[in-house]
């Protein structure tokens, strides 16, 4: 029994919803994107329609998620019901300070015990910070390929920057693999220490564990949540 308690406050409902939308939109985008690149004898019209729809949903969802970070409160670490404005948990937190090396060592099996940290370990935090940027880049390159938006000055600027629509197409295609790689790493890290984080993220199912004090930055107890069992 080593992990911290999993409380709903870590993932308030709005973020659970945006995360679900992320997941579904990404699945549609990758499948339809592959069908656009490697055409098979089924409807291209549907693949493209779904792709552009899911693409726009993904971009809007990403913007909504980032904006909500400034209004919605969430727990700064696992193992506590205290909350702060969510954006603070995206920035470097005191709990994470000096811990980057420890995380790398831990994941490389050069350190036996689990690093103390904030809601997100240092590697996870970095990958989550990159994701909105990547989504926006995919959105821009996608709009540059989309006939209704491609002639706009905005898209023409980016098309000229990369050397034309053909280059943009390949960059967009390349971006898909970057996303797939992120997904591999993300799902691995999210499940590497058991399925409890996933149940909390998707189903809001809480789970007992150690209690962390986000002000004192240490573990101060254990919540067994036995009351839930009877």
């Amino acid at each position, binding site marked *: 029994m*080593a*992990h911290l308690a999993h409380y709903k406050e870590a993932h308030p409902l709005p973020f659970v919803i945006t995360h679900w939308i992320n997941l579904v939109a990404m699945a549609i985008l990758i499948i339809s994107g592959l069908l656009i*690149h*490697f*055409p*098979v*004898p089924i*409807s*291209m*019209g549907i*693949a493209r329609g779904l792709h552009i729809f899911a693409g726009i949903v993904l971009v809007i969802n990403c913007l909504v998620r980032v904006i909500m970070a400034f209004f919605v409160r969430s727990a700064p670490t696992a193992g506590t019901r205290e909350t702060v404005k969510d954006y603070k948990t995206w920035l470097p937190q005191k*709990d994470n*300070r*000096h*811990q980057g090396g*420890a995380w790398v060592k*831990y*994941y490389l*099996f050069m350190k*036996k*015990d*689990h*690093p*103390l940290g904030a809601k997100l370990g240092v590697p996870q935090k970095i990958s989550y910070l990159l994701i909105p940027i990547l989504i926006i880049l995919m959105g821009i390159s996608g709009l540059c390929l989309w*006939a209704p938006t491609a*002639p706009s000055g905005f898209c*023409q600027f980016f098309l*000229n920057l990369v*050397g*034309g*629509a*053909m*280059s943009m197409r*390949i960059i967009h*295609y*390349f971006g*898909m*693999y970057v996303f*797939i*790689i992120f997904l*591999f*790493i993300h799902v*691995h890290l999210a499940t*590497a*220490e*058991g399925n*409890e984080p996933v149940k909390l993220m998707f189903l809001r199912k809480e789970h007992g564990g*150690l*209690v962390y*004090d986000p002000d*004192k930055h*240490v*573990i*101060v*107890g*254990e*919540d*067994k949540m*036995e*009351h839930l069992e009877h």
Partner: protein
Amino acid sequence: MSEATANFGLVDALEARGISRRSFLKFCGSLAVAAGLSATAAPRVAMALETELENAKGGLFPVLWIEGASCTGCTESFAQIETPDVGKVVLELIALNYSDVLCAGAGHSLEAAKEETIQNGNYVVVYEGGITQGFGSNTLRVAMETGEEILVHAAENAAAVIALGSCAVNGGWMAAYPNPAEATGVSGILKKHSIATPVVNIPGCPANPEWLMSVLVQVLMMGGAEGLLAGDVPAVVKTLGLNDEGKPQGIFGETIHDNCERRGHFENGEFVYEFGSKEEELGYCLYPLGCKGPQTKANCGVTMWNNRRSWCIQAGSPCLGCCEANPNDPGDNWVEVNTPFYKRDRDLHIGDWFFRPTVVAAGLTGIVGAAILIHRFGMKKAGRMDGGADFEPIRAWDAKNPDRSIGQYEYSVMGDPVKMKAAQEEIAKQYEVAEEAAAEDEGR
């Protein structure tokens, strides 16, 4: 020369060459289409042509057709149109004062005629081919002058330069990596020499002759000329509907894919995967064979080729994207961005390093996937899968820097079973209190 022949009408002139009024009108119809109008505009075009020619009485703009570094394919394409060749006749009537390839004259006399035209001003240059700046511009010399000097000299005094063909627009295939001859297009050279003469870009390899005819007719007869004479560049740009890249928007505003006759098959997912297959016979969409139609802007599917007989995709070839040519970027030339022609993928390069996106990207994805798999086994073997390893009692950095410690370890219960037990009981009690309060609430 009698009065009657001197004041001949356009239709008479055409009939003298065996061209009926009907084929003249058909020609005007295709000019209208090439210019992005509907074919029903044919009589309007015909009338404009006739009246302008009659009014002008030889006062029309002369045209100089100059060869740069070219294969003369655009000239060939223009000259190879089957008889009766309406376009060529009209162009002859306009005043084609100089053409390396088409003119009967040659040598000093032709060069002198060209120089005279330049000195007189108010002429239009049709420039075919790229400009090679490498090797001191010496890869092309005509009458002792380099291609670059010839263009600069002819352009300075011209009312407009029509850059004909993808090579003239941005260097075309000559500008493909590594571009040893430093090829570029007309716009690039004029910019380099700060020449403000307006440039009309008509890409294509070769450029469709009807596009040229349509632009010439508009420049010379349908109002564009007045703008040019007045030095009113915005008026010319407006007459021709030029876009940011100096291309007539009516011709180069939509993609091949937008006007493709196989588009229905594309939407239905009916594709040709192999030449010579049944699907090819059925006329399915050529997308999997590398068709560049979705990324290429030109109205080939509307104007078509060889007097509207057929065009690439109707003839069974995927579009190679020969009209891709960004005048501001020789690297964005159709050969570099569209090869391999028959593949959906293209090579990417960062500097001198070339790679296939699918190979590199799928390879990277595979490596990361394998690394994660190994890592998962490691996590399992280390017993971390079930909740992770036990927490460190103190951060390594804090242990080394107790005076600046992040954690306040006097409150920590880690590694102290007595404190831990007390804390656990404290938290459990909070739940009991809460439950009792809830039960009381219900009881009331």
